[in-house]
C-alpha cells in the first residue's frame, strides 16, 4: 500500500521552513503522497527517513517506451484500477498488424495508410501508434527494412524465431522496436537480443504462472522494459487475466506483474472485433493489436480510447456556443451561461421544466460555474461579448436581448457596452428561471 500523507509527514523535519518551495511540511507530504513532488526537494530530510520513504514511492507499474524521437510511444505507468480514482495515464497504443507475407506494394500501402490514419476529435488529432510486423513467412528482416523506410510510427516485431528477429533488429538499429515475444522456448535468445539492442521486450506466458515466472527471470536478467502477454485470446478469460495482472501490479505491487500488457483483438468479423477492441481498451491493455484498417472501424476504437483515457479530474465541460432548448425561434429569449457542464445542464433542465423555448449561449470559462468564473475573471463582459459575437446568435433572433445570470448582475452595464446587446438580469439561481419567465421577463423587455 502507498504511504499516506500522514505517514510521510512523520518522517519529515516538521520545521515548515519552506526550503522545498512548499510552505509547510504537511503540504509537501501531501504532494509526495500524490506523486507530485520528489523527496530530494527537501534539503533537510534525514538519511534514515529518506530510506524509509523511497521504497514506497516506486511506481507500481513501469512506463515502457517503444521507438525513439517524436513518435515514440509511452505505455503503462498506471497507478489505479479505475479511472475515476485518478486517471488512466499513457493511453494504450493501437498497433496495426501487417503480415510480412504480403506483396511488397500491399505492405507499403498498408503501412502508409496506417501512418496517415488520423481523426480530428475535440480539436485534437488522434491516430495509430505502432506498426506490428507479423513474421508469417520468415521475411521479417526484409519487411523491417521496408517499414523503416516507409513508416513514421515505431515498430513491433513479431516472430518466435530469434534468427529472423536478430535480422530485423539489425535493420532497426537503435530504433527501439518492441520485440514480440520471448516465450518459454526462446527465452534466453530473446533476452540476449533485447539486451544487445536495448529494445523493449514482450514476454509471453501460456498462463499467468508462466508469465509471472518468465517476467521474473527477465527482471533477474536485468531487463526493465517489459510488456506482458497472457496469451488469453478468448474474451472471458482475457478479462479475468487482465484484471488479475493489473491488480497484482497496482494493489499488491508485485514487481514481475508491474508492466503494461499487450492484447490482440479477436472476432469472427470486423464488427465483432470492435467489441474485442473496446474490451481491451477499457480493461487495461497497454497495447491493442489489430488487423482492422478501415476508417469506420478504427474511428470507434480511437474514440473509445480517447474517452476511457480522458482525465476525470478535469471539470466536465460542454462546448461553448449556441444550444437550443425546446424549439426556439427568432422571438425566443437568449440565456447566457458558462460551460461548466453542471451549470449548463442545470440551466437546461430548469428552462425545459418551465416549458420555455430558448437559446442558450454558453461561454467558455474552462469549466467553472458562473460565480467562480466571474470571481476569477473568466466570465466578464468581454468574454461574454466575444462569445455572443462569434457564435452567430445574432442571426437567429430578432431583437438583441440577452438574459444574464442574476449572480453577475454587476456585469450588465459593461456587457451592454461591450456587446451592443440589451441585457436583462435574470434570476440569481437557475431554479428561478421558470418563475422569471412567467412573471417578469415580458415586462422587462417591453422597454426595448
Amino acid at each position: 500500500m502507498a504511504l499516506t500523507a500522514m505517514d510521510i509527514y512523520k518522517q519529515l523535519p516538521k520545521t515548515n521552513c519552506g526550503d522545498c518551495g512548499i510552505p509547510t511540511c504537511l503540504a509537501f507530504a501531501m504532494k509526495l503522497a500524490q506523486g507530485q513532488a520528489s523527496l530530494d526537494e527537501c534539503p533537510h530530510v534525514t538519511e534514515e527517513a529518506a530510506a524509509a520513504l523511497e521504497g514506497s514511492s516506486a511506481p507500481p507499474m513501469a512506463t515502457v517506451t517503444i521507438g525513439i524521437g517524436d513518435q515514440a510511444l509511452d505505455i503503462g505507468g498506471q497507478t489505479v484500477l479505475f479511472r475515476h480514482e485518478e486517471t488512466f495515464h499513457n493511453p494504450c497504443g493501437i498497433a496495426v498488424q501487417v503480415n510480412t507475407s504480403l506483396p511488397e506494394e500491399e505492405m507499403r500501402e498498408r503501412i502508409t495508410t496506417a501512418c496517415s490514419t488520423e481523426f480530428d476529435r475535440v480539436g485534437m488529432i488522434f491516430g495509430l501508434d505502432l506498426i506490428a510486423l507479423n513474421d508469417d513467412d520468415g521475411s521479417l528482416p526484409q519487411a523491417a527494412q521496408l517499414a523503416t523506410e516507409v513508416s513514421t510510427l515505431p515498430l513491433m516485431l513479431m516472430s518466435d524465431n530469434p534468427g529472423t528477429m536478430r535480422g530485423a533488429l539489425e535493420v532497426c538499429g537503435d530504433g527501439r522496436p518492441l520485440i514480440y515475444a520471448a516465450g518459454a522456448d526462446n527465452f534466453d535468445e530473446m533476452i540476449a537480443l533485447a539486451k544487445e539492442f536495448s529494445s523493449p521486450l514482450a514476454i509471453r506466458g501460456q498462463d499467468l504462472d508462466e508469465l509471472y515466472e518468465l517476467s521474473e527471470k527477465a527482471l533477474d536478467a536485468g531487463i526493465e522494459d517489459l510488456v506482458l502477454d497472457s496469451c488469453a485470446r478468448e474474451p472471458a478469460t482475457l478479462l479475468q487475466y487482465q484484471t488479475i495482472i493489473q491488480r497484482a501490479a497496482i494493489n499488491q505491487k508485485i514487481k514481475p506483474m508491474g508492466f503494461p500488457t499487450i492484447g490482440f483483438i479477436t472476432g469472427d468479423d470486423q464488427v465483432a472485433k470492435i467489441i474485442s477492441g473496446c474490451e481491451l481498451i477499457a480493461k487495461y491493455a497497454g497495447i491493442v493489436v489489430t488487423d482492422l484498417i478501415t476508417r469506420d472501424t478504427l474511428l470507434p476504437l480511437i474514440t473509445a480510447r480517447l474517452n476511457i483515457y480522458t482525465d476525470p479530474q478535469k471539470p466536465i465541460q460542454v462546448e461553448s456556443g449556441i444550444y437550443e432548448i425546446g424549439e426556439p425561434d427568432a422571438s425566443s429569449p437568449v440565456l447566457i451561461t458558462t460551460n461548466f457542464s453542471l451549470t449548463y445542464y442545470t440551466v437546461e433542465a430548469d428552462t425545459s421544466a418551465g416549458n420555455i423555448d430558448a437559446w442558450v449561449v454558453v461561454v467558455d470559462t474552462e469549466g467553472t460555474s458562473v460565480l467562480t468564473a466571474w470571481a476569477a475573471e473568466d466570465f466578464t463582459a468581454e468574454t461574454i461579448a466575444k462569445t455572443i459575437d462569434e457564435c452567430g446568435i445574432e442571426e437567429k433572433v430578432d431583437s438583441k436581448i440577452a438574459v444574464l445570470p442574476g449572480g453577475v448582475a454587476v456585469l450588465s452595464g459593461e456587457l451592454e457596452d461591450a456587446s451592443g446587446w440589451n441585457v436583462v438580469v435574470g434570476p440569481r439561481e437557475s431554479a428561478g428561471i421558470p418563475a422569471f419567465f412567467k412573471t417578469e421577463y415580458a415586462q422587462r423587455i417591453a422597454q426595448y
Partner: protein
Amino acid sequence: MDSLTVTFEDYGIEAPAEAGESILEIAERAGVGIASYCGGQGTCQQCQVVVTSGEVQPKDEARWQQEIAEGGTKVLACQSLVSEDIAVKIPIRSRAGDFTVRGIEPLTGKLVDLGRFGPLTPLTRQFALSLAHPTRDDTISDLQRLRRALLDEDAELEPITIDLAVLRELPQALRENDFEVAVAVSDNGPTRKIAAVRPPAAADSSLGIAIDVGTSTVAVELVDLDSGQIVGGAIRRNGQIAYGEDVISRIVWTQQGPDRLQRMHQAIIDTLNELLSYLYEEHNVESKQVIAASVAGNATMINFLLRIDASPIRRTPHTPPATEMPVVTAEQLRLDIHPQAAVCVCHPAVSGFVGGDITAGVVATGMHKADELSLLIDVGTNGEIVVGNKDWLMCASCSAGPAFEGVGVEAAMPATAGAVTRFRYDGDEDAVEYESVAGQSPRGICGSGLVEMIASLAEIEVIDRTGNINSDFPSERICERNDELGFTLFWPDETARDEPIIIYQHDIENLLRSKAAVLAGITVLLNKLDLATTDVEQMYLAGAFGAGLDVDKAVAIGLLPDIPRERLEVVGNSALAGAYLTLMSRQARQQAQETVSAMTYLDLSSDTDFMDEFIASNFIPHTDLSRFPSVDM
C-alpha cells in the same frame, strides 16, 4: 448646493442629501441597507423602494420605470435622484439587512481564559509612575530615568525603545507633571515602545478593544486592559454589505471606480465607529480612554480596513497582498479611539480565503497546543475549517455562503432582539414553539433557529430530504409566491413586523447548500489525510450560531458530522475571542504568528472530491445515511 432631507420611514431616519444623489447612495451613507446586487446600474431590480411623499427624477430615462404601489410610487432606489425632500419606505424584500447596533453579552468561558498565557501583557500597557526627581547624585537622563522606573515595574519589558515624537515631548511632560506620569507602552513586536507620556490621571482607566471584522457582521468588545475584564460588547451588520454580500462582490465593486476602495474602507470605519459610540454611551467611556485595538478578520476585510487593494485575492491563485500587517495608529484610520492608540492586526491570514479570524479561533480554542485531534469550524459568510493538533494544522475554506448569517434567506436575521433562536413545529399544533432573543415577538430567525427550523420541517415532512417543499402537505401554512412554494412560520399577528415570516423554497436551498459546503469541507479535508470524522476527538463550532444551538439538530440536518456529542462544543465567536486574547497577552500574539506559519492550506475550490461530497451532503442529512447512525429518519 441644496441640502435636502430623505426620510426613511421604516427606520425613523432623516438623512441629509444633496440634489442629484440617488436614493440608494443616500441610504448607503445613512446606514440604511437596501439590497443591490448590480451596484446601482438599474439592472438587478433588487432595490425597489416606495416613495411615499415628494417626487424623484429618473437617472436614466432608458431604464426608468415606476408604478403605483400601496402608499406611493414604486421605483428603483439606484435610478431615482432626489430634487426635493422625500419620504421613502423600504419593502422587506428590498432590505439588505438591519444595520442597528446591538449589545451582546461579553464572551465567557474557556475561549477567553487568559490563564493559559501567563501574566497579562496587553497590546498597550499603562503604567502610573512616580519617578525620582533628578539630583546631583542621580543625573541619569530623562529617558533612562523613565526606563529605570518602567523596568522596576516589570523587568520583562526589556528591550524597550521610544518614538522620537514622544521623546521630544518627554522633558516637558515629566516636569509639567512633577515626574508623576502615566506612561503607555506598546507591546506589539519584538521590542516594547514607549508610546505616550501623559498626566497621571490618564492612567486611571486604560481600555482596549477587540474587533472581529466579519464579512456580514462586525463585533467589538471593550476591555479593561489592567484586569482583562470585558466591559461590554456590540455587533452590527458590516456596512460594506451595501457594496456586495460576499468578499468577491466587494472586491469587484472596488475595482469599478477610482474612489471605491476609499468608500469601501470608509464603510468599515463608519461601522466600527458606530459600534464604538454605542459602547461609549452604554458604558460611559470616552474615546481617548481606549489605547489599543486588536483586530481579527479575513484577508479581504483586513485589506479594506487598511485601504489596501484586495483585488489579487479574486484571481487564481488568490494570493492576498499581505498577510501580516503593519501596526497603525487610530489617527491614521480615523478610528474613534485615542488617536495615538495602536491598531494591530494580531492574527495574520494564512491565505486569501483563510484569514486571521480563523487563526484567532485556533489560538482561542487552543487546538494548536492539544494532543487530541481537533477540528474547528467557523461558519460565517464562508465556512472555514481547521483540523489538527499540536503537531500539525491544516485548513480550508468552503464557499458556504452567508445563509446561516441570514443573508440570502428572507426570514433570517442576526441573533439580536426578536430573533428566533429555538424553533419547533410538530405539524399538529396551531402555533410553532419558539424562543427568541429578549423574549420579543419574532422579527426573524437567526442561525440556530434556522437549523432547528430545517430539522423540524424535515421531521414532519414539510420538506423532503432534498429540501423540496411538499405542496401536498395538509396545512394552510403552505403558500406560493411567483410559482415558488413557501411555508408560513409565523402569521402576521404573531410577529413584530406585521407581516408573516415565511420560508421559501430558495431559502431552504440556500441553507442546505451552506450546510452541504460545510459538511463536505470537513469530510474532504479529513479524507485528504486519510482520516474520518470519527477520528476527530474534539470539534468546535464557531461563528454564526449562538451558544444555544441544538447540536442534535445540527447533526440531524447534516450540518455537522455525527460524532459523539461530548466531543462537540459550540463556542460562539472564536475570532472575537482570539482578538481579545491577543489584545491581552504577548504570548497569545506570539502563538498567533507561529500558528500561521505552521498551517497548511488546502484549496477546495478546484477539488473534484469536494464537488462530489458537496452533492452527497446537499441532502438531509447526507446520501450516506450510515454516516449518521444517531439520526433516526
